[in-house]
């Protein structure tokens, strides 16, 4: 039966080229727009190499310290305090913390990366991390291995394959020396480059060294930058570190956030000997990716996207409804005959849905291809299309196979197509079926 429906639809498609053309174009436009939004969201939030645990990731970047005027001053966490926080492992494990990793990167200063082998100098932001970083992200090592806890005080580095290619023209560089400004490091591992489209994600960077070498950010910042940090009452609060945390399960995020906030506040109050109100702000990964507040809820954050999705589906759906309604009017006689021979409304609706399914499937396929073309050709700006503020280091690096061809994206196309098909075919068909057999047959006259 289904085969017959499809055959009929195929014949109709050849007969009514205009109808088919408009139907497919409308569906393709709708799917292309809706899927582009979906792919943008997927690249921002989906589990992509090496950040496959984004749904369980928490990022601690801000501490608000109440000031005397009733407001608050915002600081970054301090490495020393994060290390103290890590020692509270029992409390943290209890609420579901799997890993805590401090991360330092001086976003204001690009370092000059060079090697003994060539005169090439590349400007990069080194990421200073501890050995837990390699548990946090699933980096694939092309050569060598990550640095270990024992090596944290040694000058060792892990670099990406793309940096190795640029500096050494090969990825076989384990054991070679690399310079960050004037300091040298031995390369112990080479990883596949981070494949996220944006460079401001937690795994961004092309060179990773032990956080031990970033200690001057906390302790020696003043001498490093001259008078940038005048000593004042808030000096004890300030730091230059981010902290990444992975939860055992996504559901534990809230309790982990609460626990970390409590512990950090206590540590800070002890170290700074203050009674000022301290509010550590811990973000979930999606909150930082979508640049929203730490207490935003997901639904509110994606409301803008949902409105657009609605527009991209609703307008073409109305268009398709009009087309199907017109076609149903011209097929009233056929409906009347089928009803007269005992076909139920359900059978007729099923037939119409299946027939339209063919058109929708073709439209969805064209739409998906269009989506890929749109995203691929415009990847330098399209991923940040909905971002209010784009930082200078948010540079698109191109899309990858896994960003576009993955089960989630394909399943979403199918779901959207099905939704569009049902939404556009059901109402006109039901309206057409309201007429009784006599009326329908009379229409044939």
């Amino acid at each position, binding site marked *: 039966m289904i085969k017959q429906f499809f055959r009929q639809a195929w014949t109709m498609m050849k007969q009514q080229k*205009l109808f088919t053309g408009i139907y497919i174009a*409308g569906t393709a436009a709708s799917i292309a727009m809706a899927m582009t939004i979906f792919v943008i969201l997927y690249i921002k939030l989906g589990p992509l190499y090496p950040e496959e645990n984004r749904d369980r990731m928490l990022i601690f970047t801000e501490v608000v310290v109440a000031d005397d005027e009733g407001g608050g001053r915002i600081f970054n966490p301090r490495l020393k305090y994060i290390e103290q926080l890590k020692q509270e492992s029992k409390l943290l494990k209890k609420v579901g913390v799997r890993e805590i990793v401090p991360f330092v990167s001086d976003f204001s200063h690009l370092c000059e990366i060079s090697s003994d082998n060539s005169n090439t100098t590349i400007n990069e932001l080194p990421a200073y991390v501890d050995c837990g970083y390699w548990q946090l992200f699933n980096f694939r090592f092309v050569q060598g291995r990550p640095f270990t806890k024992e090596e944290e005080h040694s000058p060792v580095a892990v670099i990406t394959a793309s940096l190795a290619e640029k500096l050494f023209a090969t990825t076989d560089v384990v054991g070679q020396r690399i*310079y960050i400004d004037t300091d040298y490091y031995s390369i112990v591992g080479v990883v596949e480059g981070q494949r996220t489209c944006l460079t401001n994600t937690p795994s961004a960077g092309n060179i990773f060294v032990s956080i031990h070498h970033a200690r001057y950010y906390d302790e020696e910042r003043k001498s490093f930058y001259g008078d940038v940090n005048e000593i004042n009452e808030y000096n004890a609060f300030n730091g230059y570190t981010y902290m990444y945390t992975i939860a055992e399960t996504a559901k534990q995020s809230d309790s982990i956030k609460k626990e970390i906030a409590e512990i950090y506040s206590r540590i800070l109050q002890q170290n700074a000997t203050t009674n000022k109100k301290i509010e550590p702000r811990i973000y979930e990964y999606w909150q930082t990716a979508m640049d929203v507040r730490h207490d935003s809820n997901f639904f509110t954050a994606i409301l803008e996207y949902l409105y657009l999705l609605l*527009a991209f589906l609703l*307008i073409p759906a109305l268009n398709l409804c009009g087309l199907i309604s017109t076609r149903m*009017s011209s097929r009233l006689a056929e409906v009347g005959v089928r009803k007269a021979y005992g076909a139920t409304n359900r059978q007729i609706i099923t037939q119409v849905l299946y027939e339209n399914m063919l058109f929708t499937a073709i439209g969805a396929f064209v739409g998906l291809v269009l989506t890929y073309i749109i995203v691929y050709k415009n990847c330098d700006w399209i991923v940040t299309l909905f971002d209010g503020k784009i930082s200078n280091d948010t540079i698109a690096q191109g899309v990858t196979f896994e960003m576009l061809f993955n089960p989630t994206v394909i399943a979403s196309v199918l779901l959207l197509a099905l939704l569009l098909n049902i939404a556009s075919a059901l109402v006109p068909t039901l309206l057409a079926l309201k007429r009784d057999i006599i009326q329908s047959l009379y229409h044939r006259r």
Partner: protein
Amino acid sequence: MIKKIINQIWNERKENAWIFLELLAVSIFMWLAIDPLFNLISRDSVDKGYDSEKIYNITYTYDNKRSPKYKAELDNATTIRESYKQMLHLIESLPEVESYAISDGGFPGGNTYGGWEFIVDSTMRADNKEVKKEIYFFTCIETTESDFLQTFSFKDVRTGEILKKDKNGNEGVYISKSLAKELFDTESAVGKSIKMHDSDNSFNVLGVYEDVQGFIYNEPGEFMVMVRQYDDPSNIRHVAENIIHIKLKDGVDEYKFEKRMEDEIKPRLRAGNLYCDRILSHGKLKNEFENAYGIKNKYRQNFIISSFAILCTLLGIIGTFWVRVVARRQEIGIMQSMGATRATIVKQFILEATLLASIAFAIAMPIVLHKIYAIGFAEPLVDLMRVKPISETIAWRNKPVPHFIIVSAISYFIVVVASIVGAAIPVASTVRKEPVEALREE
């Protein structure tokens, strides 16, 4: 004829229902997409009050202690002072340069400024009222040769000519016309003074200029230029944060100048650990701000939505009218054989499409008005718009009623044109047939 067509639309109301709903939805979305676009374009095209043509901005950076190029022996106040002087001299001596200015990073059409609460003493005002107000300002650093006002062509409210800088090189402030009115209740504020809140610092008003756009995509309004005399820098960070703005002489080829700057001058703008980072035209800098603040994204988003709405209108109308024309082939044949011209028939269908789109648009307007009532017009980049212009300086087209009328007119025009094109395509192709062929097909 219109009455006849309205009757026809009413008689075919069931057939028209879907396309009507689509036009209704398209009208709403089109309005919502045009609103922010109009907002941006309109605010970008306001009279900025200063001249941004032929202005280049030179930014600096320096090698820090960890850089391989860092030279410790040059990191001292004397060298920094001499280095900076040399560079200023080099810029000043360029034959293409008409004037130059130094700012601490805030300048007209930029993205940063200072802000402080100031007090106007009651004796400064005719009504003897003390005024306390938060004022936003740029700080310019003046040497004997530099001239901020001339470089950006600020206009004197009294003469309309370019405002002259204080001959004696005094420190003080230049204020905009609307700020003068707000603070002193008069435009004639030269010689009066304002005081910083929580400080003894007092500043004389050295001049009053026509309002300028202090911030990109903002209306010109209350703003101030604070003049600080050039002080020999003791720390490299102080000079590295400054921006040097140069204005080119008339007739200088900008392309050639940019190339010469990049190839010849930029390498020479290096002294000690300080070196020129970038030389950017005002236009390119604006482009960077537009990218960074998501303004370009706003343009893109709304162009995409409008284009999508236009495409849907076209597809919907083409589909509907094709079916309609096919159904009325006989009628068309009879009309043609009775002497109706092709133009008359096409006109009839086009009028039908126009009426349909117009009715849908008219019904969409109360929904749009409700949205405006509930959440207002599209605010261009709320985060960026912290400087609220005073009402007098809002361009007429940005006031609520004209804004609504203009956005509605643009949206209506687009929806109707798309509908007309959508209707004309199938009708024109059908009426090309001879009447006898049309009648025979029935």
